[in-house]
């Protein structure tokens, strides 16, 4: 473009944020050189005339497929950023508009960091240390089988477990909200006591309209008793077409009815706007090098978590080694810091020794700002069923995290945030299954105490893999985690008869201990569309 004397941004495209995370080699699916060379080179073709530059460029984009790619990229950005707000709102509002929520998140973070630091001091292990060359070589050799390593992890404990986090949420209060002491039919009897707006069933039916009784679903209408000509074959055909078009938005709409197993890996990549470019692979290799060169304290936490959770899982134990390869790199990936712009959480900050308070010596710890907790590795495990190339697996996981999973363990008022999900779950139960809800409360078995762990993990490790993937299809399709709360309520509804007979929390836990035989789509459909309310 220099030859035309114009600025680098092609006209008509001003204001479009092309890349949320800028460093070269980030996961943006915009093809190589989107900032410069390639695009500029192609724009210097003879067909493009100076007089009709704008039109020619648009035309060229359309034919070459760049338009589609740009659309997908923009669509991807829109998925995470909230709708435009007041121009005078400060950046914290993008993270979290409500002050009391921000404060609560802040103090929770302080607690976590304190816990991490004290573990560090107790065990006299530095937060980070450079590996001696011998150790580096050894790790490189063992890269594909880190699972066989048996470091002594007995002294490490997870920084926190979901139930610790639940206690914090239970104690959340909005100081501006006066409930009054008198109980009324409006009184919320669950554990969450903040007034957030959540959808009721009529609104959910509208939101999840494609899950209705008259629309075909994978997970229901592909069962063995249903002839495939009725729905499945056509659905597969459409899926292939969507993939051929490479349209993110269409894929997202399509996947609301579930994804055929053979197309799922590609569809998810399309929706998440991931394509494995050489620079992405290079970036992953760079992260791997960081892992080899430096040892982080959080690495031990990751090891411990994998050994405690995924290694013992019937389905995921096979992929143990992949989990290390993904999570150790994830901890070192500074591009993840970008998502804190819209996450209520903030990355823990630490200072180089002796330079406390001096901003030039501040570092984020871990480098990606995310401290893993007990069960964290279960976010990655199901993805191993779809992707076996490490850098692609990595990219997909990272995108899933910065789009969805982070909301499950930070305190915010977002409709897909864990607080809203908990409130949604409890409200659904109290409103539509009042007898069950009261009974469980009476015996000291607040339902949220049981369902919380399911939602924090997005049901990973609780459902059979094929069912989990069908569920995550819908998370992607609706760009929302609310379905987790609806499913949790649907599970309680399904087992209501047995639950009505229990007389203790332990017994209630036992009734709900094994979800591995559940079929999620029928449960959801019945709860939303076939229950008389």
């Amino acid at each position, binding site marked *: 473009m220099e030859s035309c004397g114009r600025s680098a941004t092609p006209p008509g495209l001003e204001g479009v944020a092309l890349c949320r995370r800028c460093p070269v080699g980030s996961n943006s699916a915009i093809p190589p050189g989107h900032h410069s060379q390639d695009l500029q080179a192609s724009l210097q073709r003879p067909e493009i005339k100076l007089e009709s530059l704008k039109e020619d460029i648009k035309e060229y984009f359309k034919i070459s497929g760049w338009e589609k790619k740009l659309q997908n990229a923009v669509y991807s950005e829109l998925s995470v950023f909230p709708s435009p707000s007041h121009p005078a709102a400060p950046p914290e509002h993008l993270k979290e508009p409500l002050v009391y929520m921000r404060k609560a998140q802040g103090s929770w973070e302080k607690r976590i960091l304190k816990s991490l630091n004290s573990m560090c001091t107790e065990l006299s292990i530095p937060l980070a240390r450079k590996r001696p060359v011998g150790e580096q070589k050894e790790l490189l050799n063992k890269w*594909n*089988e880190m*699972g*066989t390593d048996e470091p002594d992890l007995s002294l490490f404990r997870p920084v926190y477990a979901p139930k610790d986090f639940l206690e914090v949420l239970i104690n959340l209060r909005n100081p501006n909200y006066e409930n009054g002491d008198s109980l009324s039919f409006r009184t919320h009897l669950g554990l969450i006591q903040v007034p957030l707006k959540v959808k009721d069933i009529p609104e959910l039916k509208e939101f999840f309209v494609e899950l209705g009784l008259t629309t075909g679903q994978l997970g229901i209408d592909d069962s*063995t*008793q*249903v*002839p*495939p000509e009725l729905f499945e074959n056509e659905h597969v055909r459409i899926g292939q077409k969507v993939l051929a078009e490479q349209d993110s938005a269409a894929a997202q709409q399509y996947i609301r009815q579930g994804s*055929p*197993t*053979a197309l*799922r*890996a590609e569809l998810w990549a399309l929706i998440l706007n991931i394509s494995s470019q050489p620079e992405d692979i290079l970036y992953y290799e760079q992260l791997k090098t960081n892992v080899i060169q430096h040892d982080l304290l959080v690495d031990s936490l990751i090891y411990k978590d994998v050994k405690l959770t995924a*290694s*013992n*899982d*019937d*389905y995921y*134990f*096979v*992929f*143990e*080694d*992949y989990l290390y390869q993904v999570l150790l790199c994830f901890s070192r990936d500074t591009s993840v810091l970008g998502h804190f712009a819209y996450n209520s959480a903030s990355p823990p900050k630490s200072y180089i020794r002796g330079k406390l308070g001096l901003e030039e010596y501040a570092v984020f710890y871990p480098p990606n700002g995310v401290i893993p907790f007990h069960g964290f590795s279960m976010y990655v495990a199901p993805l*191993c*069923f*779809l*992707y*076996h190339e490490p850098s692609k697996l990595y990219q997909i996981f990272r995108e899933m995290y910065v789009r969805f999973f982070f909301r499950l363990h930070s305190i915010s008022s977002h409709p897909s945030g864990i607080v809203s999900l908990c409130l949604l779950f409890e409200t659904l139960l109290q409103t539509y299954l009042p007898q069950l809800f009261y009974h469980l409360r009476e015996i000291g078995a607040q339902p949220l105490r049981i369902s919380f762990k399911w939602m924090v993990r997005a049901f990973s490790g609780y459902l059979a*893999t*094929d069912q989990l*993937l069908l569920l995550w299809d819908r998370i992607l399709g609706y760009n929302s985690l609310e379905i987790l709360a609806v499913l949790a309520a649907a599970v309680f509804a399904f087992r209501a008869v047995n639950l009505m007979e229990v007389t203790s929390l332990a017994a209630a836990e036992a009734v709900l201990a094994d979800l591995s035989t559940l079929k999620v789509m029928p449960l959801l459909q019945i709860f939303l569309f076939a229950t008389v309310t």
Partner: protein
Amino acid sequence: MAGKVKWVTDIEKSVLINNFEKRGWVQVTENEDWNFYWMSVQTIRNVFSVETGYRLSDDQIVNHFPNHYELTRKDLMVKNIKRYRKELEKEGSPLAEKDENGKYLYLDFVPVTYMLPADYNLFVEEFRKSPSSTWIMKPCGKAQGKGIFLINKLSQIKKWSRDSKTSSFVSQSTKEAYVISLYINNPLLIGGRKFDLRLYVLVSTYRPLRCYMYKLGFCRFCTVKYTPSTSELDNMFVHLTNVAIQKHGEDYNHIHGGKWTVNNLRLYLESTRGKEVTSKLFDEIHWIIVQSLKAVAVNASPSLTSSTANDRILKYNLINDTLNIAVPNGEIPDCKWNKSPPKEVLGNYEILYDEELAQGDGADRELRSRPGQSLGPKGGRSRDSGRTVLTTWK
């Protein structure tokens, strides 16, 4: 008590006994009148040996066919398959068709195998053709991975050479008989590990052949990552998947025992490799099973020892479904029974092959339909048994 099935067993396993008791069957001893005898391998051998001349009466059922060892023993299995193939060739059956290199198109499912010491010289000739290959030695009469080892040098099996100085024709006792097969060193790996398939097949009659496949088969994984490197040939944890071997590895995990259900495997393969390839794979597995049965062979004793809680449940249900098919409605067995059991009693079994049904539909029954090569009609999608059709051939 007239009408109650009388059972005997010489294998004291809860998964068996619980199943008998829940049906209200009556336990008796082997000297009394019995209807159903779940026998150990040794007992079968004794009962059906030529010397005893024992005959089952019309109302008695046992859990193994008298010739089960035709497949239990590896050398007999290989002999049977080789003989079966030759027979088909002689008949001019299209199944026995070969390609330009002399390889069977449809019956090539056993790697190059020789019996030792009987075929030693033949083996040496083959070995010399590709001296860098690895071969696997398996003792004929053992199970659970016992006595198996890998070799890549002739010197490692000098013992079996027939030219050994002991004598020119030594009839080796069956204890020392081995089969040696070409080792497949590029197996499909999942999570970098080798795995095998444990599938349960019930054969209720041989003529006509009626067999059922249990839907809940499973895969057994090695605890250690696979490497074809020759330095690891001695490391049995890399190469053998039997639970008995893996159980003693350092990494063996007692909660799950390194197993996946076959459905899981299917999900993984469909997700990562696509539906066509996966369906073809399972088709071919089922084909191999049926052909092997036709060549007459059935493994004698699946392990009834349960290694994990899940495992115990699986085997209990397996025996339950097995008994439902073998002794329908809990009636006293009658050798004149010949009907196929109704779909409801199948439980987790699926019809793998029913010769009567296959023949009943006329047309070339043994022809196989492969994509791009239609040799015959596709196996019917029988609406009654649901959509799961195990095979695309009859």
